[in-house]
């Protein structure tokens, strides 16, 4: 089982001229989870979106040792954000089948494929097996979240980037999701979750963003630096 290791050094990024992340570094081994803590606006979502490659970092490097060299980390990871990426006009199974056929699979370190390669099984596992042919417009918010999560179960990718994964979920669904996260980690995968609620997971590290780079606004001394950004050059 080739173990993978994610190394992220000196990561910083701007949003609208404001420096949101400054010099964030951490390492994460395969089979481990990382909880990103910190008050709202400290940049939890921005860190996840930067790791996913959706936002371009202004400085720092992201590397996945043991993964595919020619692919960015974003292409070897799942991003589970606030939006469900579902089309109400398509039925539940059509939505899931599209993502399974469209997404490029990356096998997990222990070489196995997806947790639920079969779509019906994936839907059954997240508890919406009875809505396979219903247009997903009929699903409730919680059911849509679970359908979106089923995407992570049916396409194998080593890194899971979860933004508030347990929001809009009830106790049972949250239990179920934690179970899948542990199963993913047992297969050598990595989970990075930004959340307020404590996640009872084995082998989980913590990264408190406010400690690493100071509170959202930054202490007075470094106020100017943390505000530095694209218009830094004009700040002469």
């Amino acid at each position, binding site marked *: 089982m080739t173990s993978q290791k994610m190394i992220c050094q000196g990561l910083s990024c701007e949003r609208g001229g404001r420096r949101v992340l400054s010099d964030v570094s951490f390492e994460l081994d395969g089979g481990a989870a990382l909880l990103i803590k910190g008050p709202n606006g400290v940049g939890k979502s921005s860190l996840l979106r930067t790791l*996913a490659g959706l936002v371009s970092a202004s400085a720092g490097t992201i590397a996945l040792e043991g993964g595919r060299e020619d692919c960015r980390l974003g292409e070897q990871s799942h991003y589970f954000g606030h939006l469900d990426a579902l089309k109400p006009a398509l039925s539940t199974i059509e939505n899931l089948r599209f993502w399974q056929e469209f997404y490029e699979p990356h096998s997990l370190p222990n070489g196995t494929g997806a947790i639920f390669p079969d779509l019906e099984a994936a839907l059954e596992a997240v508890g919406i097996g009875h809505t396979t042919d219903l247009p997903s417009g009929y699903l409730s918010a919680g059911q849509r979240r679970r359908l979106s999560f089923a995407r992570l179960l049916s396409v194998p990718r080593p890194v899971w980037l979860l933004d508030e994964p347990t929001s809009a979920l009830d106790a049972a669904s949250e239990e179920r999701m934690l179970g899948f996260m542990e199963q993913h980690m047992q297969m050598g995968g990595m989970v990075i979750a930004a959340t307020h609620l404590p996640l009872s997971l084995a082998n989980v590290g913590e990264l408190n963003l406010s400690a690493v780079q100071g509170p959202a606004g930054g202490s007075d001394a470094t106020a100017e630096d943390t505000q530095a950004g694209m218009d830094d050059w004009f700040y002469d």
Partner: protein
Amino acid sequence: MTGSMTNTRDAAHWARALFIREFRLGVRVGGGALIGVLFFLAVVTVFPFGVGPDMKMLARIGAAVLWIGALLATLLGLDRLFQADREDGSLDLLVMSGRSLELVVLIKCAAHWCATGLPLVLAAPVLSLFMNLEPVAMGAVTLTLLVGTPALTLFGAVGAGVTVALRRGGVLLSILVIPLCIPVLIFGVSASTAAVSDFAPFKAPLLFLCAISVLAVVVGPVAAAAALRNAGD
């Protein structure tokens, strides 16, 4: 497990899945297909009310009216090309899917053209009845539309990619894209009017139109993909 040998079969597989999804969404409830053709019908019908029902004059400006109607109808449906995906979060996943974004944009444009562009071409002969065009001119307009509308969609995709993050992007899209589409309009109309007058050349503008469409097949997706890549924030 994702060796290169599976790439060719694999490529066709995901491309087909994306095309089917986009086409199905375009045609299903709330899709843009019906609305595009209706807008085309409405625009073409309004012209005679403005310029009067004089048949000879309508025949002269018929081709131009049809082409301008088709251009506006195409632009109408384009701002939802990426906006819909961005609003429900699919755009992020498309960018992260590991498939080449240029190909993804090309397939989305192809599906969008089949759902909204093709019905315009099919409606053109019927609408040219209202413009009292002779059969030859009718055929010419339909042919030039068939060849020209892909270019409109592909250049429009660039505008859509650029304005995807803006709130009122739809309006801005038309302003950005119309200048890009002026050559398409010029060659399209001149080819259609040349078909009836016996001394103006018909082939030359038509070939120019094809050339522009082929150019758009390359420029459109590349530019739109670049615009989408940094629309993530």
